[in-house]
């Protein structure tokens, strides 16, 4: 216990972080949201190390989800939305995997998933909600009875109860807490000690990290802990909740990282074109995942021109005028 406080150094490579903290069958919370701050470096490493039977939990995702599913690393997902907005309104490998029965999916809403992670972060068994009465989101079960009540899968998807503080009948939905084995986060700045600073929207990353047993953070920059302590109002997670810090410039590419780079429309459009075809997708994995051992090799492959094209403007935080068609 508290080994994260005693750790001499949390700095490690993606390969080491995955080897030490991600096991077959784990429940993994994906940080980021659709086209922003996907933890691509860890997703690719999980694929390279051949992890299997993962159970992904998230709100709306995203490129990391789609390649993990496409590579066959995933058996189960709980999510609210699978896609990247205009580049893939439905995640392409996600769609194929669901339609073919390769993965089992449990749908919730984004507020549902937010409350479920929040419950995990506060050590509460469930959260109430007022979303979804009499919808199929609550009524239809994606996970069959053979999964229910086993491991981290609760016996019920949700329970409709009533508000005991209202003398009149008033239904309320109860949603089970999520306590993932591992949370993956990509942040702009992390201190040597593990203090995390996320810039721009934090989505649900903070709650996901607190709900998880282990936390892997990849980052654009490792900075001295003392620098982050000069303005602690801006920090997102204390160091003692973080197990691994993986330096990874452009670690969210082809998704965006606010104030560092925009999403990469060329890559996302190319992905959309190849991902629908099994053979072409396999080649994509060979080329963009298996053949690149680490982030340095990946960035060399993307190339300086494309990286500079998406580099963020320091004032705006994105790449103004970027051709996003």
């Amino acid at each position, binding site marked *: 216990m508290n080994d994260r406080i005693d750790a001499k150094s949390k700095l490690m490579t993606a390969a080491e972080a995955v080897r030490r903290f991600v096991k077959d069958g784990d429940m993994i919370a994906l940080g980021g949201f659709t*086209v922003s701050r996907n933890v691509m470096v860890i997703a690719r490493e999980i694929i390279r190390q051949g992890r299997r039977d993962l159970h992904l939990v998230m*709100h709306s995702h995203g490129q990391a989800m789609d390649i993990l599913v496409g590579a066959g690393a995933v058996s189960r997902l709980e999510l609210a939305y699978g*896609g990247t907005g205009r580049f893939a*309104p439905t995640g392409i490998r996600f769609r194929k995997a669901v339609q073919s029965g390769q993965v089992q999916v449990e749908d919730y809403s*984004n507020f549902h998933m937010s409350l479920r992670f929040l419950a995990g972060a506060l050590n509460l068994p469930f959260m109430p909600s007022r979303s979804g009465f*009499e919808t199929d989101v609550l009524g239809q079960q994606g996970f069959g009875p053979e999964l229910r009540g086993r491991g981290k899968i609760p016996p019920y998807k949700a329970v409709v109860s009533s508000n005991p503080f209202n003398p009149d009948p008033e239904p309320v939905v109860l949603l089970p807490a999520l306590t993932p084995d591992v949370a993956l986060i990509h942040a702009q700045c992390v201190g040597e000690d593990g203090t995390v600073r996320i810039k721009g*929207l934090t989505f649900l990353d903070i709650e996901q990290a607190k709900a998880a047993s282990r936390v892997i953070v990849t980052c654009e920059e490792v900075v001295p802990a003392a620098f982050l302590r000069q303005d602690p109002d801006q920090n997102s997670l204390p160091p003692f909740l973080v197990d691994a810090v993986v330096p990874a410039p452009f670690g969210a590419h082809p998704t*965006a990282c606010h104030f560092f780079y925009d999403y990469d429309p060329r890559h996302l459009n190319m992905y959309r074109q190849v991902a629908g075809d099994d053979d072409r997708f396999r080649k994509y994995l060979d080329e963009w995942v298996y053949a690149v051992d680490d982030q340095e090799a990946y960035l060399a492959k993307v190339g300086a021109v494309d990286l500079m094209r998406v580099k963020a403007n320091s004032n705006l935080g*994105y790449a*103004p005028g970027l051709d996003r068609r």
Partner: protein
Amino acid sequence: MARAYTDKEMMALTAGRFVSNGDVLFAGTGLSMLAATVAKRIHAPQAVVFFETGGIDPALAELPLAVADPRVMTGTCMNSGLIDAFSLLVHRRLRTIAFLGAAQIDPYGNINSTCLGDYRRPRVRFPGCGGACDAASQAFGVIIFMQQEKKRFVEKVDYLSSVGWLRGGDSRQRAGYARGGPMAVVTNLGVMKFEEESKRMYLSEYYPGVTAAQVVGDTGFELDVSRAKESVPPSAEELRILRQDVDPQRLILGPVAA
């Protein structure tokens, strides 16, 4: 006579007209982003646009392509996260209007953005409800974008992702929803609204160049057209703002000759 605007342009401008100054708009991607932005630029400058990701009232100098686009984090009054965003969506003192899209809709405005066929082994899988289920449940009101097609306007949706007026009448309220419900459905042919009592969909407007019969022909359930009128066409000024200021790259509007 060829119209001087595309379906998508008409849809964005039509939906924008539902926005009042001072509304708080919950916008998703695509057309809903356009509608919110265009309303703010044309007639509701004090409307506030926010995103379920936590970006509140961004500058929107460029059009975001997803609700997590870095463009929703710039020039905001506040950057937060999902839980903060949903606290605004459900706030009892805010008139939050959500723009939603879907694959299927039924006569009571219940929508499906999850799948066709059996849920556990669907014929077609869509992304899922995202925050739409929450907006449909708890926002002050909802405006829905649809393509008007028989296979999309169906008696019964394959999967009910986000609630409308449920089974009509007061069934929505009795199910536990304290407020909200769909205000209108904006399609490529016109605008549908919901009857005061029964909450069943009826045709309210058809666009210039479209007939009520055409809308009925592209609807998979019975649609009352007795109150239908022709829409006011977009003004040159509305089109100019939409094309020049809101989506100059036509990222969402798409090709000029649709």
